[in-house]
């Protein structure tokens, strides 16, 4: 396999406006739906008075909890089957009409009566009622190794702080949307989801129908970042019920304001972290996380999990607790767990380095974990030390103190931190069809959120068969295709790779045998291990002989060849080695001495995540992740009104995200790894950029103004006042 910066497969469609997103499917007779929201944060829906709504122009149907009684009970139907209200803005009914404006008008004519109960609208109102989950994702929530209390007692230095991170929202540019209809007993569902097969399975369960009668399509997705998953399903079901009631196609699209409440969020955390050191080495870590979850479903990021294994340390204790509030439900978001967790751990490491009189980089190198100390397994591969070295060189880390600390009104600071993310795979099937003209069709029922899955799928198959990308068609985002992985957890490329490789290996074997079996052909009598595939030719390695793929096919398989490949999910209990991608992030920031404004000026990051298939697209993933991390560090926070439980400022005017004017210079280094434990040495890369950088920025702010800021986002108000030493430095 060769790394090659093929242009993005679907780029031409996207720059010409021809990529058809699922919400743009426009069947005849389409109805438009809107959701009616609860005006309270906690209580009960008492009644829905829809006497007047049907008289409004264009009104088509109303869907309420009564209609949901026909659905099977499951986690995905709880909110639409039970009339309890758990958060402000929770939908209580859906109205469909001929146009969206008419749907809004009819919805305003529906009278909702609710009975309110006292709501918990902030985490700090219910800290005493925190619960301890068993698991955080696939990890145990609480772990302990060694003797933490003794080690902290005997430590030469203890860094003990509380770190807090705010709620963030994903905000893909495309809001969640569904266009759905029924064809007799069959349902067709065009929707922006990161998981078409899970969506199909959940529809099958809720509507009690066979999966083969459901087709889910998501061929283009306008971003996702973790929010286009399960929280969308109840409202999608209501759209499907509206379609079933009316016999007409129905379209439901969330408003930007609903993207704050209905589709998930990065949970708020309060993290108590203590590090103990002796001789500059970590002797103890305690990391105790309290985080927000909703009143109706428990969810926890794996926030403290990475403190168990990032550094060598004999005594480690970690816990996670959850506080149930009447706020929206959290879900994974860009670098779930690692983003908030490394903010605490890496901020504390920077503080420790200062107290120990060590360079923060040297302290990390000194505490490098040469194996996974939590499981005792070796790393499948680990080039973190190379990331430190290469990143530091390219950034000029060693010389940073010689650089001037002022640039006009800007006070300059430097910081660095580590990032990591597990390399795991899902089960996957893929089909590769080689046509008689040696063009290729690659099919896999996964999705492309924008991460480059079209390109990766095509490229893996094209490279294996020596066919140019121009002759490759990629089909994904349709449950009529072989089952593919959901788009999350940086797993898609690693998951599709072995499945596509398996399919192309079968095709290569067939083609080699076809070419060799023709005694009069140029490759007659050659053995398959002598044959290579490149430039649309089958070539003998031992001689000059070659034959065009299209000639071999014309002679022996004019209708082409098809093969399916299959690959298994990571089998965690049986793993011989822990797979992990790593990175080191170095930043230069400036703080406006008078105004307190913080600007990231320069980011240099070195990442090691197996073999990179397409450096052009990989760089885009890394940079995009880093920008997401800058948003979490400096911009993004979702606040709840304590009195009403309403989310404050549900718009891009109030929820700040990084824009063009916020962009620093990026320098990305990609360190290639051979990994004997992972197929093709492929590790996921999507999450790596979005962790680590938050702590690097916080450390750089400290370097600039001498103030440790232990909460995110770091805003202007944190960088003003007497504690901020901007003038003298």
């Amino acid at each position, binding site marked *: 396999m060769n790394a090659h910066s093929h242009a*993005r497969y679907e*780029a*031409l*469609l*996207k*720059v*010409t*406006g*021809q*990529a058809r*997103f699922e919400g743009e499917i*426009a069947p005849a007779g389409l109805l438009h739906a809107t959701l009616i929201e609860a005006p309270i944060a906690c209580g*009960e*829906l*008492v*009644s*829905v*008075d*829809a006497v007047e709504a*049907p*008289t409004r*122009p264009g*009104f*088509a149907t*109303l869907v309420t909890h*009564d209609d949901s009684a026909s659905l099977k009970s499951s986690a995905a139907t709880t909110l639409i089957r039970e009339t309890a209200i758990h958060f402000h803005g929770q939908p209580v009914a859906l109205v469909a009409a001929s146009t*969206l*404006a*008419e749907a809004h008008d009819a919805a305003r004519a529906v009278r909702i009566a609710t009975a309110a109960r006292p709501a918990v609208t902030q985490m700090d109102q219910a800290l005493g009622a925190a619960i301890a989950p068993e698991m955080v994702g696939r990890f145990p929530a609480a772990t302990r190794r060694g003797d933490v209390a003794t080690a902290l007692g005997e430590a030469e230095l203890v860094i003990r702080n509380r770190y807090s991170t705010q709620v963030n929202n*994903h*905000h*893909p*540019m495309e*809001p969640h949307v569904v266009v759905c209809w029924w064809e007799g007993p069959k349902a067709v569902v065009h929707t922006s989801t990161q998981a078409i097969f899970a969506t199909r399975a959940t529809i099958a369960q809720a509507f009690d129908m066979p999966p083969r009668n459901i087709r889910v399509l998501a061929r283009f*997705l*306008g*971003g996702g970042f973790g929010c286009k998953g399960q929280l969308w399903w109840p409202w999608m079901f209501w759209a499907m019920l509206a379609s079933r009631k009316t016999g007409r196609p129905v379209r439901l699209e969330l*408003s*930007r304001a609903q993207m704050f409440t209905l589709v998930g969020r990065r949970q708020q955390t309060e993290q108590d972290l203590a590090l103990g050191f002796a001789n500059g080495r970590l002797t103890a870590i305690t990391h105790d996380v309290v985080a927000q979850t909703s009143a109706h479903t428990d969810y926890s990021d794996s926030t403290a999990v990475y403190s168990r294994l990032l550094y060598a340390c004999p005594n480690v204790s970690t816990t996670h607790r959850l506080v149930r509030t009447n706020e929206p439900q959290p879900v994974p978001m860009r670098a779930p767990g690692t983003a908030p967790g490394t903010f605490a751990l890496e901020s504390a490491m920077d503080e420790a380095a200062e107290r120990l009189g060590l360079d923060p980089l040297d302290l990390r190198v000194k505490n490098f974990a040469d194996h996974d100390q939590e499981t005792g397994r070796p790393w499948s591969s680990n080039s973190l030390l190379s990331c430190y070295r290469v990143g530091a060189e390219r950034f000029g880390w060693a010389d940073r103190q010689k650089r001037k600390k002022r640039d006009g009104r800007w006070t300059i600071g430097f910081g660095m931190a580590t990032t990591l993310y597990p390399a795991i795979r899902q089960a996957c099937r893929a089909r590769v069809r080689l046509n008689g003209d040696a063009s290729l069709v690659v099919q896999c029922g996964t999705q492309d*959120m*924008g*991460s480059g899955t079209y390109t990766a799928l095509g490229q893996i198959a094209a490279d294996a068969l020596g066919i140019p990308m121009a002759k490759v068609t990629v089909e994904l985002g349709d449950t009529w295709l072989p089952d593919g992985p959901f788009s999350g957890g940086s797993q898609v490329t690693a998951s599709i790779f072995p499945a596509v490789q398996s399919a192309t290996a079968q095709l290569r074997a067939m083609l080699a045998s076809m070419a060799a079996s023709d005694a009069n052909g140029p490759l007659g009598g050659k053995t398959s291990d002598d044959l290579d595939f490149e430039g649309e030719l089958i070539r003998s390695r031992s001689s000059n002989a070659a034959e065009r793929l299209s000639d071999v096919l014309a002679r022996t398989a004019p209708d082409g060849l098809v093969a399916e490949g299959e690959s298994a999910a990571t089998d965690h209990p049986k793993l011989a080695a822990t797979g992990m991608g790593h990175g080191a992030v170095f930043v230069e920031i400036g703080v406006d001495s008078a105004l307190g404004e913080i600007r990231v000026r320069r980011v240099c990051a070195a990442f090691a995540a197996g073999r990179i298939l397409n450096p*052009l*697209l990989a*760089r*885009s993933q890394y*940079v*995009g992740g*880093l*920008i*997401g991390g800058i948003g979490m560090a400096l911009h993004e926070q979702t606040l709840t009104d304590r009195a009403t439980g309403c989310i404050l400022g549900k*718009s*891009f005017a109030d929820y700040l*995200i*990084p*824009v*063009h*004017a916020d*962009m620093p210079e*990026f320098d990305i280094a990609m360190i290639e790894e051979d990994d004997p434990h992972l197929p093709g040495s492929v590790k996921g890369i999507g999450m790596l950029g979005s962790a680590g950088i938050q702590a690097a920025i916080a450390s750089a702010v400290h370097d600039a103004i001498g103030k440790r800021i232990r909460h995110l986002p770091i805003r202007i108000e944190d960088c003003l006042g007497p504690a901020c030493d901007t003038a003298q430095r």
Partner: protein
Amino acid sequence: MTVTQPPSHDARERTPPRIALSLTINAMRYEIEISPSATLLDVIRDQLGLTGTKKGCDMGGCGACTVLVAGRRVVSCLALAASFDDAVVTTIEGVGTADHLHPLQAAFIRHDALQCGYCTSGQILSGIALLSENPGSIAEIREGMSGNLCRCGAHPSIVAAIAEVAGL
């Protein structure tokens, strides 16, 4: 919970008011009837089916719906369609085709200036209008493009593509 609904309904056959509008979009003349409250985005995307123009927030906050009116950038979700009678509008479909790409579209592909593609139409239209304003520096491009949000994080490549076409 109780739901009160009439046993059957007949939406009153009140014909909503419509007004006539003339638009030239991508050199094509449209004579249409629109709702008085329709936005230019509603008309372009839903009524005329030119779905290259995207709705990201419907509040003028993201720039995904950017179109050109007489060469100037307009967030079409904040533009009342009725006030654009006789306007000359360019959407992404009118910028270039697969066979004849606008230089900025070609630069977007070369620089990989997109991921999910949902903000791309707005970025390109905004970039084309910015180019006509002769930006003098990378900083001016960044400032001039800051009304167009991107969530995937393609910003540096977007600015690089515009800078290349601007000769910077």
